[in-house]
């Protein structure tokens, strides 16, 4: 009769890990949805200055980015003066207007008045090139701009 006797095991049953993939997938989907990939790789040095009276720049799809800075170490053939980068390539000042026009064309018409130009300028750049870009933006009537900065005390700008 002992054949049907229940086994009197004292050891605890192993915890089932079958639901582990589900948990991991849940996390995975969260990060997949939350991820925004950098759309352009930077070819310039871009150490932003610091300010503390900042406003948040939300609605990322309504922002046009203009990068200005010294070509980074792998692009030294372009010189050491600060240059403009639009999308994935270096540009001259007179290409800014065309860039704004193409950005506007890619957005829905009713959203065009809300477009903001974010100037991501390296702290070491000088105002000459920034002034030129600002003048170009005025010519093409893109008047809403944002000087992108990091948050912090302005005394860090002097270093």
């Amino acid at each position: 009769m002992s054949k049907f006797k229940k086994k009197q095991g004292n050891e605890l049953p192993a915890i089932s890990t079958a639901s582990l993939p589900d948990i991991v997938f849940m996390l995975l989907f969260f990060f997949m949805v939350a991820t925004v990939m950098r759309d352009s790789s930077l070819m310039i040095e871009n150490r932003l200055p610091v300010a503390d009276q900042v406003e948040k720049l939300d609605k990322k799809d309504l922002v046009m980015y203009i990068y200005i800075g010294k070509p980074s170490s792998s692009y030294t053939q372009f010189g050491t003066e600060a240059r403009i980068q639009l999308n994935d390539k270096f540009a001259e000042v007179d290409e800014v207007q065309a860039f704004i026009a193409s950005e506007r064309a890619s957005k829905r018409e009713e959203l065009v008045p809300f477009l903001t130009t974010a100037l991501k300028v390296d702290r070491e750049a000088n105002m000459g090139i920034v002034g030129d870009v600002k003048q170009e933006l005025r010519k093409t009537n893109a008047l809403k701009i944002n000087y992108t900065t990091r948050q912090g005390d302005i005394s860090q700008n002097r270093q």
Partner: protein
Amino acid sequence: MAKRAAPEVNAGSMADIAFLLLIFFLVTTTIETDTGLSRKLPPIDDSEQDVIIKQKNIFTVLINGKDQLLVEDDLMDLDNLREEAIKFLDNGGGAGDDACSYCKGKRSPESSDNPDKAIISLKNERETSYAMYISVQNELVAAYNELRNRRAMELYGESFTEMQANHKDVNWVGNKTKLKEKIDGIKKDYPQKLSEVQ
């Protein structure tokens, strides 16, 4: 003869694959949003009409090519700029129609009439460094924000920055149109007239 059960696929490595993907997305995720100083550029005006502005209503700030700060043609330290800008904006020296009832300044006839007339003109040279320019912009915006906060505290008992944050907050309970009116009222009391000269 016993029916053979289909062998079960081993799903033990599923978690590993998922972890690999998870780590990839974890590394590439950027959730933070950009912050910065928002400004509005003046439109290009073809019509050459000179608006006459009294010299006393203009506060000139020049950053020269050596990153030195010249306020009203005098050399000044960056730390004093905010205070000086507030003194200028809040002066309220006007009389009659130009009088400013809420200003707390010295009411000197040499300085600005009221905050609506007061203009800060920020000039820079081509060699000015961007970091310095942003520092100065920051101080000037801070001067406006400080005055607006003070005004909001007087009128509504909360700071202007708080009111703006509430207006943006979707979870805030309260009358948003009323809040917007209050914000616009304060903006009208202390309008940001900061001109960037080329």
